[in-house]
């Protein structure tokens, strides 16, 4: 158990008090952690309408258990869990779980918080943090040795008081399945000291800007695109002070990290701790949820694997090809099992089923001949004979009728029923109870209930669309379990105006910066065509040479070709 050394880093909390009053109080700094139990995002709706995201099961265990296990085995003694939505459920879960005996867990209700920044500001007002603390999201799964990160952070703090944060970053190639769907971080850091210079995760820009003065101060700079932010930060108390000062800082990555790195006046520094062999990842959206489930099943998070029954009171045993079954589960011989399957206690599986990389909760009844591929089925579901579920998440208590099919990338909320012979198409999100807060949403709600009835054949099922949240149509399509496309950078066309200015100024190497390889030959042809037409017009109209040259010049500017070309 790592105990933090005193070392003059802020006030210490006295852990032991000796009996006699005359003796000195022994001061020991207890390692504290702040757990953000609310991600303030909506990608998992409708599963998270009535239940907090951190209590959603990941391989049949609530996500927050993994984070608590990580903190407990790292030697954290006191945890402040910041909740906003569904705080009562989080409170009752934490009361029952065994981590309450290993660490002191305080649940803090952050009223009126709309972002991580707000929640942390709320915590700062309570003045409970005494010295450097670990800031972590409630949906982080990790097996790293916390001691290493803490030692590094303390060494950096000792060297310079301005080193206020250490971020843990994991190596994962771009388009790796564990990275979030919108994760396109470009990280720039000093190679020798691993000090972070730029952390750019903007979704709408294809450029990262680095100030030249930074390069002057740090002669060896490395640009990396294969680092994933794990949302494990070791922070000094200065971070909270900065958040209180800048009360418009909402998101940790976009506002806090960027704000600290951009501010040269204060000169605060953030360092990166890069891990390759160990595992750390955050569940950001359904894509990373699906990927991290697969990572846990494929044992990348060793020793937090299901059959060690470490994170919850489960009773799994593992068989070859990563098949995990709890006590008493029997899968009939006639079923086809491929690999990566998890089956919870009390589940009955019918004859002739096809199980392919699926996670099945407890007390699920699966009829004969079902086909379950790459899906997550929570507790108490019932799946009729010959049904087909592909790449979807079925919430608690969902009933699927005979020969129904639930298409790829669906999210079915708890209690949804689908009649027999129905097909739920791709990207559908269904839920049972949805209360519209505003009146202007009532007719939208009625339409969605009607559509829900069309799809499932059951009254009372509502289709949860992005319109209900005022989001784009394709916002939910990108946030699905298995997005089809790879990460797309915004096209250069959108930034054309900016481009043109640069080109006019340089006049050369415009082609190199384009990279719009496919468009080029076509553009060239069009340019040549227009040039020829201009010359023709000039000759026909007997215009002077200068005016033709001028016209040709404008054509050149329109297509920004090289000067040598013509």
């Amino acid at each position: 158990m790592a105990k933090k050394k005193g070392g003059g880093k802020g006030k210490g909390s006295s852990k032991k008090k000796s009996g006699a009053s005359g003796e000195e109080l022994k001061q020991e700094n207890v390692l504290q952690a702040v757990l953000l139990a609310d991600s303030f995002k909506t990608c998992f709706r409708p599963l998270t309408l009535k239940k907090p995201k951190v209590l959603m099961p990941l391989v049949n265990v609530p996500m927050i258990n993994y984070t608590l296990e990580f903190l407990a085995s790292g030697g954290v003694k006191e945890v402040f869990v910041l909740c906003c939505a569904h705080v009562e459920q989080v409170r009752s879960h934490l009361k029952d779980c065994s981590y309450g005996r290993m660490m002191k867990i305080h649940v803090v209700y952050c009223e009126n918080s709309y972002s991580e920044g707000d929640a942390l500001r709320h915590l700062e007002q309570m003045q409970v943090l005494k010295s450097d603390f670990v800031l972590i999201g409630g949906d982080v799964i990790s097996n790293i040795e916390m001691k290493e990160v803490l030692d590094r952070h303390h060494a950096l703090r000792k060297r310079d008081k301005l080193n206020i944060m250490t971020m843990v970053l994991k190596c994962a190639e771009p388009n790796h399945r564990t990275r979030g769907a919108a994760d396109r971080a470009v990280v720039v850091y000093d190679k020798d000291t691993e000090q972070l210079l730029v952390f750019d995760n903007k979704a709408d820009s294809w450029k990262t800007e680095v100030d030249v003065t930074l390069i002057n101060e740090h002669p060896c700079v490395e640009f990396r695109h294969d680092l994933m932010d794990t949302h494990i930060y070791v922070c000094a108390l200065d971070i909270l002070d900065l958040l209180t000062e800048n009360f418009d800082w909402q998101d940790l990555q976009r506002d806090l990290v960027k704000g600290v790195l951009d501010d040269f006046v204060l000169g605060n520094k953030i360092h990166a701790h890069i891990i390759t062999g160990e595992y750390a990842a955050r569940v950001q959206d359904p894509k990373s949820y699906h990927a991290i489930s697969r990572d846990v099943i494929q044992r990348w998070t060793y020793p937090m694997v299901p059959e060690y029954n470490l994170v919850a009171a489960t009773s799994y045993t593992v068989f070859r090809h990563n098949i995990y079954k709890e006590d008493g589960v029997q899968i009939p011989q006639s079923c086809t099992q491929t690999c990566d399957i998890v089956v919870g206690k009390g589940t009955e599986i019918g004859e002739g089923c096809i199980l392919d990389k699926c996670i099945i909760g407890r007390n699920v009844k699966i009829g004969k001949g079902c086909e379950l591929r790459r899906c997550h089925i929570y507790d108490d579901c019932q799946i009729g004979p010959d049904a087909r579920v592909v790449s979807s998440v079925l919430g608690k208590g969902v009933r699927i009728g005979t020969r129904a099919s639930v298409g790829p990338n669906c999210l079915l909320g708890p209690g949804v029923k689908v009649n027999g012979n129905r097909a739920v198409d791709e990207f559908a999100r269904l839920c049972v109870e949805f209360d519209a807060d505003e009146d202007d949403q009532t007719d939208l709600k009625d339409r969605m209930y009607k559509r829900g009835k069309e799809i499932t054949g059951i009254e009372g099922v509502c289709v949860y669309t992005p319109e209900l949240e005022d989001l784009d149509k394709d916002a939910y399509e990108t946030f699905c379990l298995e997005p089809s496309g790879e990460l797309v950078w915004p096209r250069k066309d959108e930034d054309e105006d900016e481009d043109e200015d640069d080109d006019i100024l340089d006049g050369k190497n415009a082609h190199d910066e384009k990279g719009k390889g496919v468009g080029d030959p076509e553009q060239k042809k069009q340019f040549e065509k227009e040039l020829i037409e201009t010359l023709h017009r000039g000759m026909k109209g007997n215009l002077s040479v200068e005016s033709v040259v001028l016209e040709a010049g404008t054509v050149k500017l329109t297509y920004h070709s090289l000067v040598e070309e013509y």
Partner: protein
Amino acid sequence: AQMGDKDEKMGLSSPIWSKIESLELALKRRKIVGSAECAVETLQLLRHIVSKGKFNSVDDVIQAIKKVGKRLAAANRTQLTIGNSVRRVLHMIRQASAEIEQQKGTNDVVDVDLTRTLVKVMENSQEEFDLKMEVKKDLRQMIIDEISESVEDIQRVYAHIKVYSENHIHAKDVILTLGYSTTVLHFLSEAGKLEREFEVFVAESAPSYDGHKMATELAKRKIETTLITDSAAFAMMGVVNKVIIGTHAVLANGGLIARSGAHTVAAAAHHHKVPFICVSGMYKLCPLFGFDQDTFNDFKYPGEILKFQEKFVEKVNVQNPGHDYIPPQQVSLLITNEGGNSPSYIYRLLAEYYDVEDYDL
């Protein structure tokens, strides 16, 4: 698990339960690994329970130890020495109670043999002891002493085994070994001290490659060593005299749970009719049977073989088993700290250490 009930607590106070829970957690989190370490920690905890727990009768002690032992063994199912230690302690408790009972009234030290043999059944002379008997101080002391002796045995296992090496390693021998095993290292270095010229081939044992460490250690002790790849084991078997390996556990049928890769070497040795010798301490002897590769196997971290950060990792399924099961037909000799035995004799040794009632914890 909630520890509310008086029944559940079984006469053990909260400080003891917190010790039990912390050991259980450390075993689950794989902070304590290694057969000898796990065995010693378990024995020390059980000794603490026997000395500090409040028990009304011998039966209570046995039930409490069984319950605790079951939890600890479940914390790390592939580390069989935990269960072995628990069974040993139960056997010691029964043995000690029977001795104390026999000793009542007399001052002689009586040697009681509780093993069930056919002779005893025929003559009806099986010694029993009263389960309801009180747990007095001298009984506790006896059990504690025996447990301490066991702990010392485990800590000095290398010293006890290496005396047998002069019988088994002769001049001009060519020995093949696999990976790094402290027992084998001590065994071979003792023979090296006798100034017998013998040669050792060490298979590097992927993916941990601790064969490299073994080769350097042997070379430091002035033994002629050659490092080979695992795949070369079959090819080299033609020139090898004997194979000596260490093991993770010994099963009741004489089979071995050894490191991954040992089964290949055993099969190659069997094919070439080369003697396959296993050296291990008696604490690794387990009364359970297993006949396939998966029963006592642990699938380890796939990062030892494939790097996580590469994108194609999602298309590849990695299996990294930690252990191999070697059937008893392929093992020629088992050398323990009590001498050499053939695998078919192991079941008799079990009777000295464990009682049949405890095989299923």
